[in-house]
């Protein structure tokens, strides 16, 4: 299992944009964490440091206490699987099966074992029947699921999902939720970037809020979406999930999820 630590992480892009401005973050192994923040706040830049696709301008990234500076991306890929936000920047193979097999094959998986991990990953995302399809013949929502499957098949201890629910209908979102739950059940670390506040509040016990390349809040959904912190959240262009807003309006305290809201209503009545 892999624990992650970021210390004083700064990233400045070549053209001068300071995307990360001193990030400190510790993620114990097996944790489920969501990163929220407005567009351009540095969320994607942050997670691309976890597998070495981007290297820190300043600061350090530690996996299990070890600075990853000297490690190659290919090596880090065994520990951190990153599902890109845009599937079209991730998918390159001519067949769905080949796309999913690429990662595990690089990790040395072969033969029946390879068939099994590819099959499992495709089944998890509901694409088992499309193994011989050309990825470009799939719609956007399915290409997103394919990109997810290609990382699931690598069975990395850390899985990072960049906006996993965009373009998905209600069933697709439910599928992503089930996958996240299954990963946690296996003890793996899940980090997700999302603008879907309901998805975040319902699925993630820890929420990190970013603004202008820094972490401005960090806590459970009940705290981050609490009425007292609406101002802080608003300063990042975000609004709490609907249930939290109703709870705040009714003076029920922190009710980040529909479930919490109903529970608070019951207690309140008594």
């Amino acid at each position, binding site marked *: 299992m892999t624990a992650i630590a970021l210390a004083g992480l700064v990233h400045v892009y070549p053209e001068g944009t300071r995307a990360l401005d001193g990030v400190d973050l510790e993620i114990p192994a097996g944790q489920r964490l969501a990163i929220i923040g*407005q*567009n351009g706040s540095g969320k994607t830049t942050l997670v691309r440091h976890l597998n070495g696709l981007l290297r820190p301008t300043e600061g350090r990234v530690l996996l299990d206490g070890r600075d990853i500076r000297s490690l190659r991306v290919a090596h880090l890929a065994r520990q951190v699987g990153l599902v890109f936000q*845009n599937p079209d920047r991730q998918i390159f193979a001519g067949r769905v099966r080949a796309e999913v097999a690429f990662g595990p094959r690089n990790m040395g998986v072969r033969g029946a074992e390879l068939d099994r991990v590819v099959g499992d990953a495709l089944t998890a995302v509901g694409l088992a029947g499309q193994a011989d399809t050309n990825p470009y013949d799939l*719609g956007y929502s399915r290409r997103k699921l394919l990109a997810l499957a290609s990382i699931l098949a690598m069975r990395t201890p850390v899985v990072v999902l960049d906006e996993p629910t965009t*373009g998905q209908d209600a069933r697709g979102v439910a599928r992503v939720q089930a996958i996240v739950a299954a990963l946690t059940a296996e003890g793996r670390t899940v980090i997700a970037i999302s603008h879907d506040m309901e998805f975040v509040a319902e699925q993630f016990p820890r929420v990190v809020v970013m603004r202008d390349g820094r972490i401005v809040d960090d806590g459970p959904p009940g705290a981050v979406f609490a009425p007292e912190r609406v101002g802080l959240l608003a300063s990042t262009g975000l609004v709490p999930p*609907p249930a939290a807003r*109703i709870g705040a309006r*009714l003076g029920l305290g922190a009710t980040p999820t*529909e479930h919490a809201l109903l529970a608070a209503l019951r207690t309140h009545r008594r």
Partner: protein
Amino acid sequence: MLELHRVSYRYAGYATAVLHDIELTIADGEIVGLVGPNEAGKSTLCLVASGLAPASIGGALSGSLSIDGELMAGRPPHELAERVAIGFQNPDTQLSGVTATVFEEVALGPMNLGLPVAETLARTREALATLGIEDIAERSPNRLSGGQGQLVALASLLAMHPRHVVLDEPTAQLDPEGTRLVGEALRALAATGTALLVTEHKTDLLDGLCQRIIVIDGGRIVLDGPAGDVLADERLPGWGVEPPSRIRLARAMAGRGLDLDLIAGTLR
């Protein structure tokens, strides 16, 4: 006015059609929402409504697309572009690849329309300001975050002052503030008489924005009606469409004596 009459469409190289018998009219100033499950044909309907399918990407279309009463069959893509603006699902697809700054990217449309430089400049500034992205005007379009890319793609359409607009999930990658700005921009555009077709999974955005919503499933229109009625339809989840949060929460909290207007008001 944009009209699709008895439209069926099949992609080139495929044996079966993905759209069947689509009948759809969007009046000037009207915003029509388009919802439905994954792979229902929403993106294809957007391509067909913009005329790009078949004008640019081929395939076989039966039935007709007409704009302001004129049939669009056989028109070249750049001529269609002057009539209908389309925003693709993937903002990467929207980038022209021939500009070095966001400003030039947004200015490309007005410039291609042959407008004087002063007008192009004014329109570009206006579009950037409407979506709150003036601060990235001089950044490279290839170095944007997903959400910024989506706003730039949309700004590049707004700057063309289109009379008809088709958008395929325009806010998929946006934060709530960006989503709100897009909603306002679309409302303002409709107020000038532009007809809009907007595909979205975020029914909270469509709620209050659209006059009408259509649901498609399996390439067919299965429901078409006033936005309020469609969003409250019990069958919506069965089509993979999540009702807006005000309706979901009102249902969940039904029988608790809560004021429904309070819920709606809070979530507006």
